[in-house]
């Protein structure tokens, strides 16, 4: 295990940012810290980097106790949401910064900078100032700068958060490919579940300063540990006393499946290849269901029709505790 976090607590005044967090992040993998804003994921990342100090608990990086180590001794690369480029230095100088601090020979620095600029496709911009680059290019430069010192761990704090949707998508794919080429242990923070599911080998879901669940994207999606994880990773609806995904509900026109609930179709919307419908049960519950267009046509679904709803076999199901208490 590459990064071991044990019993970490952090407060900012009265606000509890992290509460007794324990997690280990595996070597050589791409891990996402996923959760809503203000949930503590960035704080955890900054504690790993040493930019923030935990009130209690320990941080161990590659077998070295880093709890009290200053950031410059930890040998981690950090990439900021807003790039944090050195504005007065050229692109090449930015990338060379960490190497020059380490007093590497000039030839070695130049060779390494050339190699990294090629890796992030910025070779032709070496002598430009960061202000002449686009947001995506600046972030790639920041990545090259972080990688230049061959860090044991690469940490990225919402790295694509300030970019527009298209560039975001490109950089996301690019980061995945880069990680396959340069397999340094990487941890990135995001509040975008799609981004986490697409890029990460492993996801750590953090909410309210606590870790909700750790697992691969598939295991989190298919077997969420609780209501929160389920809701954060995708759409959720409630059928009877369970919560499940709208596409995990089977529709029949007659009560021939065991445990079916009868309902009337209230609204029906076609979006491309899928059909979304809202059905009202006899208890007054509104259930969202997603099905394919061909299936909807085969069943001749129309607004006002009576249908029977059953959780499909193998569906991820979580008991709807909160709703029962409230409603």
């Amino acid at each position: 295990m590459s990064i071991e976090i044990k019993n970490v607590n952090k407060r900012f005044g009265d606000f509890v940012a992290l509460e007794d967090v324990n997690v280990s992040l595996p070597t050589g993998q791409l891990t996402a810290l996923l959760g809503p804003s203000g949930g503590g994921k960035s704080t955890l990342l900054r504690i790993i980097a040493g930019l923030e100090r935990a009130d209690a608990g320990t941080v161990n990086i590659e077998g070295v106790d880093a709890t009290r180590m200053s950031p410059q001794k930890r040998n981690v690369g950090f990439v900021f949401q807003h790039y944090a480029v050195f504005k007065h230095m050229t692109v090449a100088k930015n990338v060379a910064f960490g190497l020059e601090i380490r007093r590497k020979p000039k030839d070695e620095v130049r060779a390494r900078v050339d190699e990294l600029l090629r890796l992030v496709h910025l070779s032709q911009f070496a002598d430009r100032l960061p202000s002449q680059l686009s947001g995506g290019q600046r972030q790639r430069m920041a990545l090259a700068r972080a990688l230049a010192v061959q860090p044991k761990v690469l940490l990225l704090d919402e790295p694509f958060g300030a970019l527009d949707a298209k560039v975001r998508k490109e950089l996301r794919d690019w980061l995945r490919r880069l990680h396959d080429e340069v397999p340094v242990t990487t941890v990135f923070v995001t509040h975008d579940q799609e981004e986490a599911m697409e890029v990460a080998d492993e996801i750590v879901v953090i909410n309210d300063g606590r870790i909700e669940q750790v697992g691969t994207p598939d295991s989190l999606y298919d077997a969420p540990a609780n209501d929160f994880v389920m809701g954060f990773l995708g759409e959720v609806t409630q059928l009877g006393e369970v919560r499940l995904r709208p596409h995990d509900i089977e529709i029949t026109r007659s009560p021939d499946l065991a445990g079916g609930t009868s309902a009337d179709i209230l609204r029906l919307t076609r979006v491309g290849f899928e059909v979304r419908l809202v059905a009202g049960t006899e208890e007054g519950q509104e259930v969202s269901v997603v099905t394919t267009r061909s299936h909807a046509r085969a069943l001749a679904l129309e607004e006002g029709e009576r249908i029977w709803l059953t959780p499909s076999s193998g569906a991820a199901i979580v008991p709807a505790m909160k709703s029962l208490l409230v409603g």
Partner: protein
Amino acid sequence: MVSLPLPARWAVRLVVLAYVFLLVGWPMITLVQNAFADGLESFRAAFSDPDVTHSLIVTIEISLWAVAINTVFGVGMGLLLVRYEFPGKRALSALIDLPMSVSPVVIGLALLLVYNGRNGWFGPSLESHGIVVIFNSPGMIMATCFVALPLVVREVVPVLEEIGDDQEQAARSLGAGAVQVLRRVTLPAIKWAVVYGVVLTLARSLGEFGALKIVSGNLTGQTQTAPLVVEQKYNNFAQGEAYAVSFILVLISVLCILVVSLLRPKESAS
């Protein structure tokens, strides 16, 4: 931008030009005219007086010391105010602005009270160690520093706030120590704010009158500075020489501002 109709735009320009001309331009032009009224005669008379040349040297010496000290402390205090939280921060910030609102004469008197050799708080003990503050260079440097205190800090603080500490954190995560972060990242980022602060401090220090008149004792040929010489010459009916020295003081300030505006890169490049 609000766009005004053409006649209104010209009217506004005219008002502004007239205001600046009447307040600054005309008096300055008259001063220069008077300085050169007899050709270079006034300058020759002024520079043949060793007290005048000495006063110019004293002024420049005191100003350079004050600039050096205020630059170091100004940058340090700017960093302290922007990058750190501590109790009494607002009080410190207000205290730094105090010299702006207090008359320099009062500042001179206050320093006199604390550091004079007879009954000041520190004066007697300092003098027993051979350090004479009042009527001497240390006191004059202190008074000048005090008067020009906010100039560097107030230039540096907004720039530090604007750049944030992202770059500094990035530098630390890349292995830079505190001194390296300051030298390679923070100082280059605030370079032009510091240069402006230095120029303003220099201009302010060269022209300081009230506080120095009290603290220096105005001893001719010893602690008398150029602005004090201007007053003395004027009062002694040597107006020509007073104008000549004034012109030199103005010239140095204008040169400072010119040099900076020539050195400064275009806005778009920053």
